[in-house]
């Protein structure tokens, strides 16, 4: 079994707002998708993130750690949440990623974790 990161991406800032119809629909879809992941034994972890503006970046250099406000990447596209899943191979992982993007209605990037080899 290999592990993959499925990260959710979107443009710009967003509000964490559970009340709108759109978000209600997406939360319900993602909830169902997560149940499927768990039933299949593919679930490792998943959650949504607070907006990128809530991020802080720390950098260690020559024993000194600097702290800066805001996300690392200055781009418009930011990660909004992620899953960590377990799958036997790329095809199975892509199948989960399809389900993920359909459920959350955002772009999903899938990327393998490093293995110990």
């Amino acid at each position, binding site marked *: 079994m*290999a592990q993959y990161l499925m990260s959710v991406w979107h443009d710009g800032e967003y509000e964490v707002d559970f009340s709108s119809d759109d978000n209600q629909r997406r939360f319900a879809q993602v909830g169902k998708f997560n149940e499927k992941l768990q039933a299949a034994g593919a679930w490792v972890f998943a959650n949504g993130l607070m907006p990128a503006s809530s991020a802080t970046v720390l950098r260690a250099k020559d024993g000194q750690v600097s702290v800066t406000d805001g996300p690392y990447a200055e781009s418009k596209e930011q990660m909004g949440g992620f899953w960590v899943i377990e*799958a*036997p*191979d*790329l*095809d199975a*992982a*892509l199948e989960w990623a399809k389900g993920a993007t359909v459920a959350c209605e955002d772009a999903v990037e899938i990327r*393998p974790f490093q293995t110990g*080899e």
Partner: protein
Amino acid sequence: MSDDLEAVFRREAGRCTATLIRILGDIDLAEDAVAEAFTIAAERWPITGVPPNPGGWITTTARNRAIDRLRRESTRRDRYLAAHRLVDGDDMTSDDHHPEFADLDAFVDVVADDQLRLMFLCCHPALAPDAQTALVLRLLGGLDTPEIARAFLVPEATIAQRIVRAKRKLHDNHAAYRIPPSAELPDRLHVVLAAISLIFTEGHTATSGDGLIRVDLSAEGIRLGRVLVELMPDEPEAVGLLALMLLTDARRAARLEADGSMVRLADQDRSRWDAALIAEGHELVRACLRRDQPGPFQFQAAIAAVHADAPSAEATDWSQIVALYDQLYSHRPNAVVAMNRAIAIGELDGPHAGLAAIAAIDDELLVDYQPYHAARADLLARAGHRDDARAAYDRAIELTTNTTEADFLESQRAALP
């Protein structure tokens, strides 16, 4: 390399590599092992003669060499395990084992499936089309990096990097080495067909450079198409693609003048079309019709067959071609199909009808598509709109990267009244 060995290499390299990847579970190891086996063959065969089953000989030799190497280099745990597993798998790996004595049939039996596995691996949808085609040519076609680079007219370093990246992506992502299950097969097969079609088309009309036709890639596309049909005889779209390539390639000799300039389909000397290729293409199209599971490549092959049937351009059955484009469009509703349908309507009902059909297409999608502007220019010229035709030719020439095609368009523009 001697001619014999060169011929064996062209025929067997893909098959051997495909089997070795399954045995070794690693593309690079498989490639190295196959290359090493061919080096040994180059030393031995001039003395011993070519063995009766050269592919089996290469596969067995490569396998034994790879196992030797795995043993020597088993510092990494996974490779050690791989070597161990192979040794445990059967007892054909002892040091005194010689491939000449081996039961080669056992290997050859599974080679067919291995080649299919390799096609689906190279054409994995997670890879970009240019990476897919490079990988297919390298692993299944046995072409080396400089050959692929020359064929696509891109720098060697670009192709080398493309191949390395593609292999690494497949490896890092744990891509499976298998034929996709039937539920996924239609989509996955379409990617394979598209890659082979791309290889053929790149040979048929070079996207850039001086020569319009680079024979090698068309021939390689057809060869791969034949392999695929042999491996998947029940897939009508694979048969359709092969038929399309054969019927298109049949016109090759008539596509260029002696001076290398391009000849339009309508102006081609049809006596120079290859009758044997046309007959084979027709037979395949008929087989598809009997099966009655239509698809995009089969419709395109049927269209090519209608062209091939016509003794002259004037005798072309344009109503049938328009009907086939209608069906193709219902399967693949995209702007390029709509444009080709409009060209056929222009032949059937005249340039004004063709222009109306082409105007109905959302040209946002075609704004940088050279054939669209070339087709529009031709229709405008025939409809008598000289200035608009000139502007369309200007745009088409601007978008053309192939000098032969640019020369042709310039001569068309110069011929405007």
